[in-house]
């Protein structure tokens, strides 16, 4: 076995040692805390082995929040490094690692899991189901995501992070030009979590198609459920491409194959094509559910049904189709000629049409409404003007000729943050505030919520608007330093101030969670916002079986109809309820996969083979298991319902 300690070392810098120490301290703190408070059993029984979609959703969201802070600290470090000319805070290598992991973490380990977390919590409730179609597979998905994320996170302190950008273009990402193990981490961490995501895709498609409550036709589904359905279809089509691309990348880097290298017929642009065939749909995977979230919130707080329901659905379907036809807009400049560039320009700009339809439908949902400015609504309203800037600059970038001037500049960086932050981050924050009382039984404090909101919204524009101008001044992306003569200094300094403001906003947001957990009054009826859709028809916190009685749906917004038109929702008597039993195997599978990935990263073949066999054993154990779950007897359901306030029957 080629055990070589040198490979694990990351060359010394205060920053790295700081990271090592803080990771060690936090881990020790968690272990000590769990031991002192005797929580190991609780952690295992209630969380690590759970198959309850609500708990899995909560774990996704917790992990995503952690990653938001990791990615956010990366962002602050980059903004500090470029705040003034010739800064000496990070060297080139660390800057490269930081922007690479920032992009990867924000998209794959923050935005997407946050959204998957929300959809785990909400979708089964919105369609009146008791769980997802495959609860145990759901746990597998989560643990694969979680340990994939952990694998990427340790790279910073063990062996070095990927440093070729989140798009990892070849031949730069090949062994020849990126000899550290960083891009091994890239291929394996993404592979492991990507497999989990693919399973989520299958799981939710089946859930939504097969497990809707009686009467909930497709065209009666809440808009968030619609957006999730379409998103998961995109996942199922896009992620296999990533799986293949990452596998080829792994072969190139670990086994010396030459798919994307410079010699022996390797094709660098094949990687770029495969990457963006997955990568462009990926941005819609994080943005379409946001459209769903905003639709729910805007309807609820304008006290109106959603305007243009049918065209909302149609526009999402069209966007999902088009998202697969635009990937080459990421490399207009590779010289593929006017015809090809023209085609991709037109398909890209075409996406603006269905997106515009949605914007106007939201505006007309507001019309004649009675708008209340709660925290989730504020984020949804702020989304409209800010995302529109992201959208129109997207159209500008879509024009191939003009893109010859914007490509790889700060203009692009500004654009995609103007799309991704209102489109994904504001949405998950809005959804978080909106559904929080459903899951935990109390609201977040509104005053603190609004403080955080204003910090975040204003600072966002301060941080990112200057980048449009910097792009037109000729500042390219991924530059760790620049000279004073370029004149880029002042605008970068403003942008840094904005990034600091954003950080303050996020700290207030987290403080709000802490404060509200301690002091906010508990909610009585499970419907704090006078909402419209099914998830609000059960108690808060939600009993493990979701609904004591399966609801019968007779319209869109069935809960609203029940409250205001006296349309009955729960008509059947309570009977025994079937539930899946908990299992520790998904967690164990995640751990084993983590070790498999880790050993492969360092080409430690014998341990890797052992871990690979371990994976097969856990999989075999899972497939031969005969566990048909259990029943909650009717009388137990009735007592639970009475304890929770008994509103359902």
């Amino acid at each position, binding site marked *: 076995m080629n055990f070589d300690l040198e490979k694990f070392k990351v060359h010394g810098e205060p920053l790295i040692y700081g990271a090592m120490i803080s990771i060690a301290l936090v881990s020790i703190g968690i272990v000590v805390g769990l031991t002192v408070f005797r929580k190991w059993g609780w952690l295992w029984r209630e969380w690590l082995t759970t198959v309850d979609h609500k708990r899995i959703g909560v774990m996704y969201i917790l992990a995503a929040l952690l990653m938001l802070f990791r990615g956010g600290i990366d962002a602050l470090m980059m903004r500090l490094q470029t705040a003034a000319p010739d800064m000496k805070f990070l060297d*080139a*290598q660390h800057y490269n690692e930081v922007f690479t992991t920032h992009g990867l973490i924000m998209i794959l380990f923050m935005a997407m899991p946050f959204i998957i977390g929300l959809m785990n919590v909400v979708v089964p409730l919105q369609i009146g189901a008791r769980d997802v179609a495959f609860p145990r597979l759901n746990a597998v998905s989560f643990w694969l995501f979680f340990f994939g994320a952990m694998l990427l996170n340790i790279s910073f302190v063990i062996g070095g992070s990927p440093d070729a950008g989140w798009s990892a*273009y070849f*031949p*730069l990402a090949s062994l020849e030009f990126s000899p550290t193990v960083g891009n091994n981490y890239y291929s394996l961490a993404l592979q492991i979590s990507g497999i989990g995501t693919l399973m989520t895709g299958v799981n939710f498609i089946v859930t939504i198609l097969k497990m809707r409550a009686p009467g909930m036709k497709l065209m009666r589904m809440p808009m968030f459920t619609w957006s999730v359905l379409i998103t998961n279809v995109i996942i199922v089509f896009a992620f296999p491409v990533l799986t293949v691309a990452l596998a080829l990348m792994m072969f190139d880097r670990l086994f010396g194959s030459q798919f994307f290298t*410079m010699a022996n*017929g390797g094709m*660098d*642009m094949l990687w770029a094509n495969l990457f963006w065939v997955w990568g462009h749909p990926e941005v819609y995977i994080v943005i379409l559910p946001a459209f769903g979230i905003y639709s729910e919130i805007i309807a609820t707080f304008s*006290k*109106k*049904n959603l*305007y*243009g*329901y049918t*065209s909302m659905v149609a526009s999402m379907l069209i966007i999902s189709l088009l998202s697969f036809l635009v990937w080459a807009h990421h*490399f207009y*400049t*590779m*010289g593929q*000629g006017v015809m090809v*560039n023209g085609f991709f320009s037109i398909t890209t*700009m075409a996406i*603006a*049409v269905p997106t*515009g*339809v949605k914007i*106007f439908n939201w*505006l007309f949902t*507001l*019309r*004649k*409404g*009675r*708008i*209340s400015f709660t925290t989730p609504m504020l984020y949804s309203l702020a989304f409209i003007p800010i995302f*529109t*800037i992201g959208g*129109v600059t997207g*159209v*500008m970038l*879509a*024009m*191939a*000729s*003009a*893109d*010859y*001037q914007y*490509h*790889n500049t700060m203009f692009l960086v500004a654009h995609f943050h103007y799309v991704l932050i209102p489109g994904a981050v504001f949405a998950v924050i809005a959804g978080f505030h909106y559904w929080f009382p459903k899951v935990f039984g109390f609201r977040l404090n509104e005053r603190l919520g609004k403080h955080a909101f204003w910090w975040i919204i*204003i600072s966002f*524009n301060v941080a990112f*608007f200057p980048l*449009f*101008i910097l792009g*037109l001044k*000729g500042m*390219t*992306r991924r530059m760790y330093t620049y000279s004073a003569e370029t004149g880029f200094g002042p605008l970068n300094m403003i942008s840094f101030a904005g990034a600091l403001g954003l950080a303050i906003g996020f700290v207030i947001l987290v403080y709000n969670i802490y404060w509200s957990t301690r002091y906010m009054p508990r909610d009585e009826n499970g419907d704090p916002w006078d909402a419209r859709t099914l998830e609000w028809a059960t108690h808060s916190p939600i009993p493990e079986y979701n609904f004591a009685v399966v609801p019968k749906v007779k319209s869109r917004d069935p809960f609203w109809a029940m409250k205001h038109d006296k349309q009955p929702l729960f008509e059947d008597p309570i009977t025994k309820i079937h539930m899946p039993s908990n299992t520790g195997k998904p967690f164990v599978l995640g751990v084993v996969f983590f070790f498999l990935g880790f050993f492969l990263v360092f080409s430690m073949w014998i341990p890797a083979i052992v871990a690979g066999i371990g994976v097969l054993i856990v999989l075999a154990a899972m497939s031969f298991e005969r566990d048909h779950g259990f029943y909650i007897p009717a009388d137990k359901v009735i007592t639970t319902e009475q304890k929770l306030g008994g509103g359902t029957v």
Partner: protein
Amino acid sequence: MNKKGPLYAMFFSLFLLLPGCSSLTVLNPQGPAAKTLSDTIILSILVMLGVLAVVYILYIIMLVKYRAKKSNEGYIPPHEEGNIWLEATWIAIPIIIVAFLSVVTVKTTHAVENVPADYKDQKPLVIYASSSNWKWHFSYPEEGIETVNYVNFPVNRPVEFRLYSFGPITSFWIPQLAGQKYAMSDMTTYLNLVAETQGDFLGRNTNFSGKGYAQMEFTATSMSSDDYDKWVKDVKSTASQLTEDKFKSLLAAAHVGRETFSSTHLTFSPPPAEHSEHMDMDHSNMDHSNMEMSTDEHSHQSN
């Protein structure tokens, strides 16, 4: 609560942005290709400001008019499914805008992919620009000279850059003269430009290519044709030959300063095939010793 303050601020900063063009490199073009692109960008900004204005005005009206207040306490909003005509309007108008911009895009893309219209009758000066590590090599097959990290060419004469890379993908960009184009190891790409003023222009790589990427700049100087001829003659008589060994040591170095040679590397290290050939995936002809420094007409911009 002042919701619109920041929005106004953003809006006005957009307006302020337009007149200040001259400090914005991209909107301060010094040649026809960059001028086409700058015009395209400004046109698209104006169209997009129109779109923004419509959305923002509607938005403000909705928020001001329909907010919950004391006076509309018992008001029950109506149930509205939608409206075919309204929805058709906001489908049709964006389609028209997109169609218009599509035409502009195809036209301007075509324009900048070819020799600028007013210079079609002149034979372009061919310069191979290749990147290695974090530097640029410029080879002049017609003149038989080569430079590193700076490039000179005559003003008012079309220049055809042929781009490729000895390593990671890079992107060749002189923002005041033309839009960028990738330089890759397995194919040659083309970039046409003309400088209409004399002077030094900053050029750089925009595609991240590793540690030294931030410093990967070069100077492009356009000069009168007399000065250019004189410079070429100077180089031929004073600069040393570029030997294969010297070139290898250049390739291996991370950064170097400016260098000048009286011969090119094209003879012993020919460029890869052009892009379309590469896309046929026919790699048997990767050895292009036969197409070395062909100055004949190229058909690559035909589509």
